[in-house]
């Protein structure tokens, strides 16, 4: 039957077009107008989507005609101009030589309009130049959507966004079918499948019938979930029970939550020094039930190696190390490290530097079974401070009025301003009366302290600079001595 249809299609093409994939063409049988049942049977017998365009012959390696491009047009097979936006053909420059890459870009833009099933580029020599035609084939429209299989409603067709009259777009259909499968799977229909087939209704391939078939299958539910193979199976099961209220016996599988479960289990193992553990997730079907197992290989227990805090510290180092509650030789615990990082962030914030990043840099040494840990305090790119002399007393914070001496230099050492030899400079921290980098640089200083502050342009005078002394986009270096805070 399909073979016959293919022959009929070829006859309908008048021998000019190559034969496409087999399609059912009931209307090609003389004057018989197919009934809806015949059309339904014809399209639902198929198991694939009809190709958007006939198979094309391999084009010879032809070059476009030479000379400047005289004109560009987008025409259909009958020579009628297609109404497309000017941007579509913009890559082809009138008057310039024909450019293959520009023609490709134009073809892609036409394709992306979603209206065409085929785009071919034609060139023809004419009066010392070349005329370029983008020959387009409009997409067929959807004539009828039949629904078959284990569903009696049109819900599935709606989910696949298949509407009679809309353009037939197999790219979108396949994409929507994937989404539909995922949606069915999220309802526990793990065996569900949706297939769509199509067939041209008329020999001119201007419209297609579609058939949607859905196999739903049974709802598959979880019969058990747990961790296995670890010395801490019980603890891990307790963690799972407290963290995951969705993947429980009797419910359907939520794969997103399973992903999260794996992260939670990894964290629990790392809290016990098992930093090189392995977790393998297994889902085993038994009929309409599924067992979820996290198979764990613990690996050795790791201990802390050298622990250090460094980087752009805005308080004495002792204050930082006091926040690191774990010591060398103790069993590594990821949650302890996370707590220390939070505490360091809070310290930085209390010293007026909430912008600082705190990053753990662990170094796992399998040979010694240790995790050396550096907690690095990092400033925003380009901004930095160096304490030349530490002061005493409380640290300057937002709301304080600071009195200080400063000297500002460009990176080449040119001094553009200084309070030395004048009255000390006084300003309110957090008041926005000075450049942002200067204010940030003073935060955390103590009376009597001296600090060198490097300020990138975006925290200084920006792209414009401050003519004539400060050129555009200048990085500034201030040396500041804090005299008092009130």
């Amino acid at each position, binding site marked *: 039957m399909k073979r016959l249809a293919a022959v009929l299609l070829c006859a309908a093409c008048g021998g000019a077009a190559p034969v496409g994939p087999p399609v059912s063409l009931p209307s090609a049988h003389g004057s018989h107008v197919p009934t809806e049942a015949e059309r339904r049977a014809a399209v639902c017998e198929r198991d694939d989507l009809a190709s958007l365009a006939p198979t*094309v012959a391999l084009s010879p390696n032809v070059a476009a005609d030479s000379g400047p491009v005289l004109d560009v*047009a987008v025409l259909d097979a009958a020579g009628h101009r297609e109404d497309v936006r000017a941007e579509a053909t913009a890559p082809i420059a009138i008057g310039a030589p024909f450019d293959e890459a520009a023609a490709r870009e134009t073809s892609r833009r036409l394709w992306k309009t979603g209206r065409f099933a085929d785009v071919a580029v034609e060139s023809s020599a004419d009066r010392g130049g070349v005329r370029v035609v983008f*020959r387009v084939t409009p997409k067929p429209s959807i004539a009828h959507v039949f629904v078959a299989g284990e569903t009696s409603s049109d819900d599935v067709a709606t989910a696949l966004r298949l509407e009679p009259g809309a353009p037939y777009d197999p790219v979108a259909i396949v994409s929507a079918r994937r989404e539909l499968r995922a949606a069915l799977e999220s309802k526990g229909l793990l065996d569900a499948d949706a297939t769509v087939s199509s067939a041209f209704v008329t020999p001119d391939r201007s419209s297609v019938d579609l058939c949607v078939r859905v196999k739903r299958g049974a709802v598959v539910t979880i019969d058990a979930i747990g961790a296995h193979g670890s010395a801490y199976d019980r603890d891990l099961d307790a963690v799972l029970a407290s963290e995951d209220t969705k993947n429980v016996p009797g419910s359907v599988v939520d794969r997103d939550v399973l992903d999260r479960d794996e992260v939670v289990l990894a964290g629990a193992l790392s809290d016990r020094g098992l930093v090189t553990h392995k977790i393998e997730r297994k889902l085993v079907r038994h009929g309409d039930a599924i067992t979820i197992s996290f198979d764990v290989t613990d690996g050795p227990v790791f201990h802390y190696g050298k622990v250090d805090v460094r980087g752009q510290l805005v308080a004495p180092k002792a204050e930082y190390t006091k926040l690191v509650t774990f010591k060398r030789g103790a069993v590594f615990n990821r949650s302890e490290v996370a707590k220390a990082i939070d505490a360091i962030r809070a310290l930085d914030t209390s010293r007026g530097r909430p912008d600082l990043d705190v990053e753990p840099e662990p170094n796992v040494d399998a040979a010694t079974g240790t995790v050396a840990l550096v907690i690095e305090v990092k400033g925003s790119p380009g901004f930095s401070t160096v304490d030349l002399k530490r002061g005493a007393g409380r640290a300057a914070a937002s709301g304080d009025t600071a009195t200080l001496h400063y000297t500002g230099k460009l990176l080449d050492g040119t001094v553009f301003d200084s309070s030395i030899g004048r009255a000390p400079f006084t300003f309110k921290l957090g008041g926005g009366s000075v450049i942002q980098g200067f204010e940030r640089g003073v935060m955390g200083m103590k009376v009597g302290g001296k600090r060198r502050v490097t300020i990138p342009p975006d925290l200084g005078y920006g792209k414009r600079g401050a003519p004539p002394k400060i050129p555009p986009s200048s990085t500034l270096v201030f040396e500041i001595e804090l005299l008092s805070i009130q």
Partner: protein
Amino acid sequence: MIFASHSAEARVVDRVVAIAGPHVVMMSEVRREAAPYLAQVHEKDPLARAQGETVVLRDACERLIDAALEEDEAGRLHLEATPDEVEAGIDAVAKNNGTTRDGVLALAAEHGMDAARYRDEIRRQILEGKLLQLRHPDPNKLDAARAALVAELRANVYVEDRLAP
């Protein structure tokens, strides 16, 4: 209307030959991809030569479809091949073949691949390698893994190869 519907002098110089999900592959791209391999078709018999070239063009089209899908998947997974990785890849090819970087690029040029095209090819291979490492990490079954990866990617999108027999 400026143009006749079917000008006698008009000839098709390019056209869509494949659809790979949201992408289209043009004939000119297939010819470009196939160029180094077309040069290796040496049959003297015109028919055999044409058949050989057809196979090369179809293979090139399939490679471009797979490359487009792999590129999409790599993007989805935020994988990339940095310029440094590409250069290191060229160095590795040179070392494996007992030659220099310039030697590799010269050899590629002899086969119709300029430096930019060759780098693009290496970049493509690196991305594919990263995808394989994520999805099918067994290095002993590379061909099977590559086939499985491509099959997975093709199963998720609409693919139409108009050069296919």
